[in-house]
């Protein structure tokens, strides 16, 4: 009895060990790969580190590769950059454009997509769908020159015009993903609501829009990243310097004061910080949002 037991356990011990070694894919942490990931992470972290330390230096500490830690911290760089770029104003402008673009995009694009998704059998809506989606292929530089003329003519060469443009230029992609998602929502829900006397608008507001929450998050995140970071569209559309967004302020600042590296880096850091901070708190949703957008 005891001998067979020990014999059996002696046989199973090396077996499990072998399994564990082979089963790198299924069990246990792969430390060499973790180390590799850590090394690769440096390619992301080093430029960020450089931005931070340069922003904290005095101009005379700039010699060398730039990666040395500051010997004396100079916070004045930040207040200089704050004044030179008119930072609060640029931050406010970026916030207006981004919030406007995100809110208007989510509300309007989901609405159109709902109308299209439920009427694809009708010629008008089918045309609308292909008309919008075809615009996915039109690169922005094509529209750039005439759109600038037109927005100036319509008095839209300001932040309001800018977020309208983001709403319109995002429509192609958004209608595509929203429509695919809405078509997967069973119609029985809406039919039941119609029996209870709900209108089409009521159905959208009470049933469809809440069900779209994951898609709204995806569209919202992608629109936010785009509107906040975009440079070319504000560059050509905005006419009043007081309406500059953050990237545009960096551009003007850089071309006028390009010799002053430490203040410039303080300015870059302040321009990058808001979205970076938001991202650090919301990264889980951002990543799952972007992934969801890709699967549809």
């Amino acid at each position: 009895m005891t001998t067979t037991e020990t014999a059996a356990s002696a046989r199973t011990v090396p077996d499990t060990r072998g399994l564990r070694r082979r089963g790198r894919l299924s069990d246990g942490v792969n430390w060499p790969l973790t180390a590799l990931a850590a090394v690769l992470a440096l390619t992301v972290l080093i430029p960020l580190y450089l931005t931070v330390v340069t922003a904290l230096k005095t101009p005379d500490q700039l010699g060398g590769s730039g990666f040395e830690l500051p010997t004396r911290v100079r916070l004045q760089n930040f207040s200089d950059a704050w004044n030179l770029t008119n930072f609060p104003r640029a931050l406010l402008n970026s916030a207006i454009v981004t919030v406007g673009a995100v809110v208007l995009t989510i509300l309007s694009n989901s609405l159109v997509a709902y109308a299209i998704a439920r009427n694809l059998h009708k010629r008008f809506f089918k045309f609308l769908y292909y008309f919008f989606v075809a615009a996915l292929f039109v690169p922005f530089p094509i529209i750039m020159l005439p759109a600038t003329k037109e927005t100036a003519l319509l008095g839209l060469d300001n932040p309001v015009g800018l977020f309208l443009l983001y709403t319109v230029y995002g429509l192609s992609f958004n209608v595509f993903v929203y429509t695919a998602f809405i078509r997967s929502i069973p119609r029985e829900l809406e039919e039941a609501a119609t029996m209870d006397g709900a209108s089409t608008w009521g159905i959208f507001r009470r049933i469809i829009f809440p069900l779209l929450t994951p898609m709204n998050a995806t569209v919202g995140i992608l629109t936010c990243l785009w509107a906040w970071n975009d440079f070319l569209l504000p560059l050509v559309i905005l006419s009043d310097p007081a309406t500059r967004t953050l990237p545009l302020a960096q551009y003007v600042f850089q071309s006028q004061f390009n010799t002053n590296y430490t203040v410039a880096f303080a300015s870059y850091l302040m321009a990058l910080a808001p979205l970076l901070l938001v991202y650090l708190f919301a990264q889980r949703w951002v990543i799952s949002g972007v992934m969801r957008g890709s699967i549809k």
Partner: protein
Amino acid sequence: MTHSTKAFYWMAVPALVLFVTLHTVPVVTGMFFSLTDYAGYGKWNFVGLQNYLSLFKDDRVLASYGFTFLFAITATVIVNVLALGVAMLLNAKIKFQTAFRGLFFIPNVLAILVIGYVFNFIFSNSLPLLGQSLGIDWLSTSILANKDLAWLGIVAVSAWQSIAFSVILYLAGLQTIPAELYEAAGLDGASYWRQFSSITFPMIGAFFTINMVLALKGFMQAFDQIVALTGGGPGTSTESVSMVIFRGGFQGGEFGYQMANSVVYLLVIVAVSLIQLRTLQRKEADF
């Protein structure tokens, strides 16, 4: 018309009006002005296809297409190879998996213009110093000031910023592959390379197609990173098509001419995307 159909029209028509006003009208007026000698101000005359003919004799325009293709193809290949590798790494059983995923996505939430300025400093100051101490000749001076190497700097920064997005898309793809496939292949004694070529890659074929098309289309429109790194220089060696359209159209009084360039550019992008989609999708089916 029933009540609900009416509501559906009301939902769609405002967006359609806005879209036509701010998208279709500019596209159509742009196409119209490509047939004129309009400078962007003052009077204009109808010149027919003159602008289109001049484009093919314009060295600066041809050079910008050459640069754009060279840059976009190189960047697309680099981004996709590295992104697939990083995605597989992040999909493996590594410690702090979520944290690494979060970290690797950071470049994508940052404005590429500003990132370009930071890298400009690295290329102009830090790397030459490294090159000097290692005695590497071509690295001893700023590569951005070198006519033959500046484009590589732009590729590097563009790749740094956009790999993150491709990684996320590839991760989404990798997660659709059932683990049993690898277990079965492992029992059959398939090597890691064999598992990659026979399971991983075929299973994420659709994601590979999406990534290649999106990356190439995106890089063909490069603008921000070039402004921040080289401003199109040295000379005009790193001028992209977008940049030529922007400069000629807004600053050079070439509105009509650059619209002709834009129309050609639109056709090129559509053609490239469609060819890419067709060939890649045929490959997908072959696996």
